[in-house]
């Protein structure tokens, strides 16, 4: 419990303190410190869960499904903080795009974002989950508009409106859920506690659950970035400060997807004996496939490097949703693994992209050239990151895609051609933009910058490790999660 509190509420303390801390340089370090503390808590929590199993108390619930996401969140939070300290300081002092107040807001809200993420992950109460996810929007929306450019403000506005509305729908879904629960539960029982609901799920009224799930899917799906609800995502990613893009892509989408999957578990349990037991899965699959294919096409002919990679995030979210939708242990395992590796890879890519834009002083792809000549570390980081995200072994994403494909091959063989086609198109789109940026002669007047490649290195190393061999601990967690979600174990 203490670990849990440490992990979740350190950021909360960070919010308050960093809001008061005036000096930007110190704030960066403090930000780093809080993230590290939170990571420590998460690790402690993980070991505890590993040793004593599910932790379910005081309205919190940490099981195999979310514990690894908690660790992931805090870890990416830390590495991104490592990157963001010098980067934002550079933006603040050299580029002068952020005022001192802006810096304070930034650091404080960075922690706020982490807090909401962790809260959403660990809470057992669906209402709190909703509040937290909405809170995440509120925490990040001002960061998206941090640069105060018209484009940034517009992006933030869209982000705010679309996610706000989406989340409102999720709340309606939650209400409907609560409503359905109230007819089963005795008075006084907490009808919003996920574990309670899961226990009684089979008795929940299917027709209500269906409606509730639709609202929840559309609601949280907006934050996952499912097509056609994704429109806010490229704007928010491309206009916000790069560290924000990293955490948004790496964490926020995951958490939203996590929420969706929790809801799917309830719905599946409720619909088990109805006429359409697979409905939730099929909806998710449909959304996933649509998202995947649309995003894959959108990867072509991009001009803005950050938009490019935000579309790639959408693509991978589509894949994960598809995986969860397909169901079955193999696909679920693949999707869970994919959440992990994608978060690591994508955040590392955004870190590199931050350096790349810093080197070229623009986000326009056709003006970023010859990185590998100007600064080999950045060039290679970008190239390897893209290779990883495009699903090349020995990086971990290949593993999850391999599993996903083979699972699809077993359950829906005729959908695999679509997936493969999509993967090829996605690869082409990514590389036709990346290769010119990395290779070739460097334009005159382009100089290396002080780049901190440590986060990239650690992330890619982890992804590589996951591609070559999945540690037993992690495999155990993922398998337990799979068991939790599908009821069947893989190992």
């Amino acid at each position, binding site marked *: 419990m203490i670990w849990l509190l440490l992990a979740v509420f350190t950021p909360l303390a960070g919010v308050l303190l960093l809001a008061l801390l005036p000096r930007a340089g110190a704030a960066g370090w403090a930000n780093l410190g809080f993230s590290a503390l939170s990571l420590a808590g998460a690790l402690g929590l993980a070991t505890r869960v590993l040793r004593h199993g599910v932790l379910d108390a005081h309205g919190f619930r940490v099981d195999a499904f979310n514990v690894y996401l908690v660790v992931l969140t805090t870890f990416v939070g830390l590495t991104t903080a490592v990157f963001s300290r010098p980067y934002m300081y550079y933006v603040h002092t050299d580029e002068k*795009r952020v005022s001192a107040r802006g810096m304070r807001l930034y650091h404080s809200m960075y922690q706020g974002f982490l807090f909401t993420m962790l809260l959403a992950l660990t809470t057992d*109460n669906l*209402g*709190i989950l*909703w*509040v937290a996810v*909405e*809170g995440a929007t*509120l925490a990040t*929306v*001002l960061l998206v*508009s941090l*640069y*105060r*450019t*018209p*484009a940034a*403000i*517009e*992006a*933030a*506005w*869209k982000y*705010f*409106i679309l996610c*706000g*509305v989406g989340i*409102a*729908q999720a*709340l*309606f879904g*939650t*209400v*409907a859920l*609560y*409503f*359905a629960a*109230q*007819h089963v539960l005795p008075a006084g029982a*907490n*009808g*919003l506690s996920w574990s309670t609901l899961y226990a009684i799920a089979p008795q929940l*009224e299917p*027709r*209500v659950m269906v*409606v509730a799930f639709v609202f929840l899917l559309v609601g949280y799906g907006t934050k996952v970035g499912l097509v056609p609800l994704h429109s806010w995502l*490229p*704007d928010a990613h*491309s*206009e916000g400060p790069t560290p924000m893009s990293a955490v948004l892509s790496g964490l926020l989408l995951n958490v939203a997807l996590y929420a969706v999957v929790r809801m799917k578990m309830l719905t599946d349990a409720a619909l088990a004996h109805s006429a359409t037991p697979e409905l939730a899965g099929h909806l998710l699959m449909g959304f996933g496939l649509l998202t995947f294919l649309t995003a894959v096409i*959108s990867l072509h002919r*991009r*001009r*803005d490097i950050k*938009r490019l990679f935000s579309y790639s995030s959408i693509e991978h979210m589509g894949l994960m949703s598809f995986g969860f939708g397909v169901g079955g242990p193999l696909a679920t395992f693949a999707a869970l693994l994919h959440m992990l590796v994608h978060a690591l890879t994508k955040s590392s890519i955004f870190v590199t992209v931050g350096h790349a834009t810093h080197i070229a*002083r*623009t*986000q*326009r792809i056709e003006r970023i050239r010859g990185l590998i000549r100007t600064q080999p570390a950045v060039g290679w980081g970008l190239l390897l990151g893209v290779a990883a995200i495009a699903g090349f072994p020995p990086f971990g994403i290949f593993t999850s895609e391999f599993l996903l494909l083979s699972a699809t091959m077993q359950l829906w063989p005729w959908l695999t051609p679509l997936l493969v086609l999509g993967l090829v198109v996605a690869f082409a789109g990514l590389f036709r933009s990346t290769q010119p940026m990395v290779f070739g002669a460097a334009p005159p007047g382009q100089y290396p910058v002080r780049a901190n490649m440590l986060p990239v290195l650690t992330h890619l190393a982890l992804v590589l490790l996951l591609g070559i061999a999945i540690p037993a601990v992690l495999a155990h967690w993922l398998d337990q999660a799979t068991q939790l979600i599908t009821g069947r174990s893989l190992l």
Partner: protein
Amino acid sequence: MNLGALSLLDQAVLVLAAMALFSAFALLAQSRLLAAIHVFAWQGALVAAVAALTGAASGDVNLYISAAITFVLKVLLIPWMLHRLVRRLALERQSDPLPYPALTLLAGAAIVVFADWVAAPVAQFEHSATRNVIAISLAIVLLGMLTMVVRRQALAQVLGFMAIENGLFLAAVASTHGMPLVVELGVAFDVLVAMVLFGVFFLQIKDSIDTLDIDRLSQLSASVEQDEATEAQR
């Protein structure tokens, strides 16, 4: 079922819900901002009243509290903030008429029918009289979205957004006699923060494109991909 069978309180709840629905329509159609804000305030009041009455009917205290919260928030605070904004941004005279009023209202009506159709299976497990309010609240939510779709004024969009919140609250009250208090508080807090942020944004938008017509906020179409935007500020 016949209304006669219901207690007076329940009848009152139904009446109020109907009026809330009407207010949603009004919000959809009203072109002048100040008037729209007033309509929104009225809607808030109605919803709060529904909550209070349901509380009286079922006699649990939570509902009173949440009714009070709603009243303060949606009838007093938010309208007041909106007023201030309107005055600061000098939008009193501003009005954005709908392109096709009749068509829009028809769509609204269709949405209501649809909402009833969707809510029917949900509602028939509730035995309290107020079950049909669920359909009403769903309709209000959808109408709120419709408002956001058809209105070009940023402020009007916010009103739509808040209307959705009202609808949600109504749904919560009518179907489940309110959510647990902690959730209510969280929601209220979020709404409040959201409102503050909206205020901030209005100012930002105003001084970036010097109008609140959000159709002007379309630089970020993927085809243009904000070339000028980034290049301008680099």
